[in-house]
């Protein structure tokens, strides 16, 4: 099977999406953050520039514009770019887009995609490092997607655009250079379908987004110590695939959740609660979370590294649940 870089797979998806449906418009951003691979964006502009818009620095305005356009028949994809900027468009995303379908008793559909890059990006400091997906998960009416591989970014982006619901597409800049297999005839990946990214028997490590890649590296390392780690990637938070998670938990009885949102009320907290509620009797050890410390993200490299779900913290948590 051919291998692509993550950013290449993502732009292959954008090309196929734009070619397949004239209702798709891209609003703002380059879908690349500060990546140097601007040429892939320029290739897209050359072909579909008439459906790509650069609005003013106006998240509240253009998140609302995209939401309204979705109500009236388009399928816009908005690049909010840095995840923290969604706070500028928050009222439109959380209070308008998320509520429209329910408030209208199912009469108004809002097929908009809000794309953003979350997390510790290296020097982002407190105002450019947010992982808003936990807050968004607490706001019903939004689908939330977190790809972690080239194949997933392509398949999930296609499903996001096809969805009739407002969808938050949570990307991570540290993933852009990752390489992986992408089938030629890649089909969309259904929402609510977790994937076992690596099979194992001793411990279930549940992780999302860029943390999946880190956990795969940890699993490689621990394999040398004869610790068999199963890495499970939910891929979407809304809808959430509990069945795949629980079948892994039933097998191992030991769970570590690794996620880059802050620890309190974070993604790991919610997943832990669900596992404990539905499978406490399957657990052989307390569930452990490895999340970002509950502090504003500091700038200096050693400080930033310290607060995140570091490799040594993941390994320590795995050893703890195996004790």
């Amino acid at each position: 099977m051919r291998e692509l870089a993550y950013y290449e797979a993502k732009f292959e998806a954008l090309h196929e999406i734009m070619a397949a449906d004239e209702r798709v418009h891209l609003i703002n951003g380059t879908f690349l953050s500060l990546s140097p691979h601007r040429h892939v964006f320029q290739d897209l502009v050359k072909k579909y520039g008439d459906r790509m818009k650069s609005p003013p620095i106006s998240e509240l305005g253009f998140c609302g514009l995209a939401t309204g356009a979705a109500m009236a028949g388009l399928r816009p994809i908005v690049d909010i770019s840095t995840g923290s900027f969604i706070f500028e468009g928050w009222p439109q995303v959380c209070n308008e887009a998320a509520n429209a379908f329910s408030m209208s008793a199912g009469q108004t559909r809002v097929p908009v995609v809000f794309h953003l890059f979350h997390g510790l990006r290296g020097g982002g400091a407190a105002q450019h490092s947010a992982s808003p997906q936990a807050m968004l998960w607490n706001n019903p009416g939004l689908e939330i997607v977190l790809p972690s591989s080239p194949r997933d970014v392509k398949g999930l982006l296609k499903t996001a655009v096809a969805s009739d619901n407002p969808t938050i597409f949570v990307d991570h800049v540290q993933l852009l250079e990752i390489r992986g297999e992408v089938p030629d005839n890649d089909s969309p990946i259904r929402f609510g379908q977790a994937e076992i990214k690596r099979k194992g028997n001793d411990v279930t490590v549940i992780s999302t987004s860029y943390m999946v890649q880190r956990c795969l590296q940890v699993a490689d390392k621990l394999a040398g110590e004869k610790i068999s780690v199963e890495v499970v990637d939910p891929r979407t938070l809304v809808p959430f695939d509990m069945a795949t998670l629980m079948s892994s938990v039933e097998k191992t009885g030991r769970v570590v959740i690794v996620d880059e949102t802050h620890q309190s009320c974070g993604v790991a907290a919610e997943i832990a609660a669900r596992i404990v509620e539905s499978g406490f009797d399957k657990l052989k050890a307390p569930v452990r979370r490895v999340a970002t410390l509950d502090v504003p993200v500091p700038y200096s490299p050693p400080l930033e590294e310290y607060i995140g779900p570091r490799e040594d913290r993941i390994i320590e948590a795995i050893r703890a649940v195996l004790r």
Partner: protein
Amino acid sequence: MLPKVARDTLLDFCRRMFVIRHFEESLVPLHDKGVFGGHYHLYIGQEATGVPALSCLRADDYLFTTHRNHGHLLARGADPKKLCAEILGRADGYNKGKGGSFHTVVPSLGFLHTSAVVAGIIPLATGTAYASKALKNGRITVCLFGDGALEEGAAPEAFNLASLWKLPVLFLCENNGKYGAGRATGAAQSSTMAAHPLTDLPKAYKVPAQQVDGLDSGTVHATISRAVEEIRRGEGPQFIEAQTVRWPGSESNWPVVLQNTNASLAWDVNAVPEKVREWYRSCDPLLIYTRELVEAQQATREEIAAIDRKVKAEIDEAVKVAVSSPYPKPEEAAKDYFA
């Protein structure tokens, strides 16, 4: 001044204004008796803006409205039974009780989403306008909001976008505080807006803007007709501020009806309690319109009284139907939140 339209249309405007007035007045005792809860806002005093303005639109145009939406929906022809049932949270309401007074939508009339967040709809309206332009379907969007919405950042952000991209949207600001506190001190339009007149704000973004007397149905009709035509031709967004005088019943947190309206008040307001009499004498757009119809010999007092009575009976019946509509099943709450 009466709108320059056929007599049948003039009488239809009259009927719609009475529909709004009787509908809104009938909600107050329902709320006071606890038939429905939550906060709500009435459109009384703005009928001569909404009715002629919305008559200028095409059936497939988009409209966005706010917490003060009942009048806009009724002006556009919404069914008072289903609107009332929605306000009462009943299963037969337009949104099966999920939206309520704040969020009633009627997509078949062009209302896709009604936001009770001040200014929430203004960016959304640029979005439907953007879609119409992209799809070249000739539809325009009318965004109806109050003067307070201009205080939110969403308003200028949306004006900027609409202006830059020449979007087919009419921002119709209904300022129902013509004689508000700030104005009385000779300063800004209201005590919380530094831009004065309000049209200065859209003008800063090169959105053509003008003020119109919202009590004057003819001027409203002429102004909106022209604006709608220009916007539909692709000339870009416009802003119109329609000024009305706040209905005294809306001055407190909860609406109070001190006087139920009937057509005879157009000629004699002595029955009205003195503290609100002046509003009914000189600022009530429905009564002004009624007098103009008679003075222009487009209708007799008797004909208008007959319209009034007929509408009143229809609204009484609508309320009865709405009150007898069942509540939705509780488990409906956990359904239909995703497409």
